[in-house]
């Protein structure tokens, strides 16, 4: 594959960038090692989507974002993610690459919970970050974009829940890419120690309909023995951003990771959400909704990889495609040898709203063990005319009837998002994208 490889950023630039942020030396070394690999490694090859011509090299890298003193300074569409009558106690807002706003309850601070930007974490919690950053979940050399991410990482958050701590109130992060030309190489690192639990919800938002840039987001989620993580996300990068988004979870013994992800980007997107069920009796629910529109091309891979015995992976993807949007939905259940009594279930459903939209659902089960159960369901279809007829026979207009059917179709995932205001915001975004 030939791709425009010339990066506008070199060794000197990265060294300077890292030094400006007082990063520990190992981090700077890691960045430079990664940079060397960028030219050597191949681009990722998402199944059935050609990304050779996508923009992964035209972008700016650095921008400042001012702090805000009050949440009312935020644009309306971001305020919508927040319930004014019930503001989150634990809220983090990143503007471009700077922290614009950050609060965490005293209670959580006292219990040793960490909820801070990645650069602060690199200095204040260096050992913890070093232990997990690009280690157990994602590797630097998976392909060119993982290496590029490490070389140019310019934002992100570190969430850490100590052993036996149950965080009841959700932690909410908003990544606001205000500058239309600046790329976001965001790194989200979530670590839940033994028998801890948390709910984390993140939102990405940008406004660059015209200007071109990229997002390259890597999210590593580690659930130690017995930990429970509920992870919600709404991605809403504008049409000018080409996205590589990789969210990967590692679940150790008796751990659970539940994902509810709303994929609302308007630009080309390669999306990957995998959970490695490493420990016995670990489980993952991976739910994703997608709305594609315009000439968008997207590739979604949701995956559960079963290593431990008695592991459960359940994948549910629902996509709505309109106009000329094209999407591939790969659902992969992989059961490794030795993962006895494991169960891999998956369901992918695509609803097409126009003749020119394209959708493809690929159920993939890779099973290397006899004593397991697995199931898959996949469908690509259109709005059922009988359903519309039934609704319209009660006086509901065709537009409203379609709206109801589409909402109903997406409801199994939307309803699973852990924060009410985020759920409502996702509903609004869906509304805006579909009509």
């Amino acid at each position, binding site marked *: 594959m030939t791709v425009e490889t010339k990066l506008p950023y070199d060794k000197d630039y990265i060294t300077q960038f890292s030094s400006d942020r007082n990063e520990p030396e190992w981090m700077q070394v890691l960045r430079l090692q990664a940079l060397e690999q960028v030219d050597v490694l191949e681009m990722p090859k998402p199944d059935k989507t050609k990304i050779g011509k996508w923009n992964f090299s035209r972008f700016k890298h650095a921008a400042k974002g001012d702090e805000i003193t009050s949440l009312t300074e935020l644009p309306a569409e971001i305020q919508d993610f927040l319930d004014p009558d019930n503001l989150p106690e634990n809220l983090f807002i990143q503007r471009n690459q700077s922290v614009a706003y950050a609060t965490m309850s005293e209670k959580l601070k006292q219990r040793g919970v960490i909820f801070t930007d990645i650069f602060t974490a690199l200095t204040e919690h260096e050992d913890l970050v070093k232990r997990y950053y690009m280690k157990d979940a994602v590797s630097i050399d998976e392909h060119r974009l993982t290496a590029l991410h490490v070389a140019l990482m310019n934002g992100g958050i570190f969430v850490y829940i100590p052993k036996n701590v149950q965080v009841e109130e959700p932690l909410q992060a908003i990544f606001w890419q205000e500058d239309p030309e600046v790329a976001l190489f965001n790194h989200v690192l979530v670590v839940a120690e033994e028998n801890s639990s948390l709910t984390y919800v993140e939102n990405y938002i940008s406004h660059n309909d015209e200007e071109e840039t990229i997002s390259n987001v890597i999210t590593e989620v580690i659930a130690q023995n017995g930990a429970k993580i509920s992870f919600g996300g709404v991605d809403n990068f504008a049409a000018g951003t080409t996205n590589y988004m990789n969210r990967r979870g590692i679940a150790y013994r008796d751990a659970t990771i539940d994902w509810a992800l709303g994929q609302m980007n308007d630009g080309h997107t390669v999306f990957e959400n995998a959970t490695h069920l490493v420990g016995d009796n670990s489980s993952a629910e991976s739910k994703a909704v997608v709305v594609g529109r315009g000439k968008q091309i997207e590739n979604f891979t949701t995956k559960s990889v079963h290593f431990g015995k008695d592991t459960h992976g359940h994948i549910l993807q629902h996509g709505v495609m309109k106009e000329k949007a094209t999407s591939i939905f790969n659902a992969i259940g992989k059961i490794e040898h030795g993962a006895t009594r494991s169960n891999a279930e998956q369901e992918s459903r695509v609803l097409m709203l126009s003749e020119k939209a394209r959708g493809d659902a690929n159920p993939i089960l890779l099973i290397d063990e006899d004593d397991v159960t697995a199931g898959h369901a996949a469908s690509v279809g259109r709005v*059922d*005319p*009988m*359903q519309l*007829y*039934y*609704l*319209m*026979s*009660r*006086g*509901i*207009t*065709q537009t*409203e*009837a379609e709206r*109801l*059917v589409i*909402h*109903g*179709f*997406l*409801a*199994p995932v939307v309803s699973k998002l852990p924060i009410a205001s985020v759920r409502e915001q996702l509903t609004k975004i869906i509304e805006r994208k579909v009509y």
Partner: protein
Amino acid sequence: MNVVIHLKKYKLVLGGIGMAGSTLEIKNLHVQIEGKKILKGVDLTIKGGEFHAVMGPNGTGKSTLASAIMGHPKYEITEGSVHLDGEDVLEMEVDERARAGLFLGMQYPSEISGVTTSDFLRSSINARREEGDEIPLMKFIKEMDSTLDYLEIDKNMAQRYLNEGFSGGEKKRNEILQLLLLKPEIAILDEIDSGLDIDALKVVSKGINKLRDENFGCLIITHYQRLLNYITPDHVHVMMQGRIVKSGGPELAQRLEAEGYEWIKDELGIEDETVGQNA
């Protein structure tokens, strides 16, 4: 919509001089589906205050008549007309027909995943109201709850997805729930009694009878006299071969219950009553 608003005003005036309710007038209706002729000239007029029963063996065109009136997308009208208070129903979209005052309780209601029964009901009610004049939430909940009680339906049903996983009887009760909340001028109920146990039959009949007044006309498609024991029809019609072949009063349904359809076929010289045959 302008037409309909105009129509309502018109009716008010008429109400003053002693006429009430709407009139649905079906004339010489011919319907085909996928090129197959099914209805071959149906004439039937239903006025406010009247209850009509349509009976007839399987496959004779009863559901086709109901579906064609409501505007089911698969049915093609090749001849004839349907008018509601003089307005051409066949020119209207399905939703316009409903807002003009028609209602069809379906033999096989659709299941709609992800849409709660309650949300659906509220959308249906609001569809008949002007924008900005939506039913207040509390008022809606009160009306829905009292109707659920009246029909002895478990309140949880309102929060379940529309018809999804409903038993046959629950689906039928849900159709009547909609009927009572939407209060149409003319309702067509297609086998609303099939699959109902005796208690459900009583409840469903109670619901239908509640609407019985001079402003409400109803066409009941049924196979069984037992429903008509609870809801006495003013007129009974028998369909065969895609037409109404005989009409009478409630005694006609009783005779059908006792003797079946053979005597009608003999009387009219019909050998095969299904729609594939030509009369």
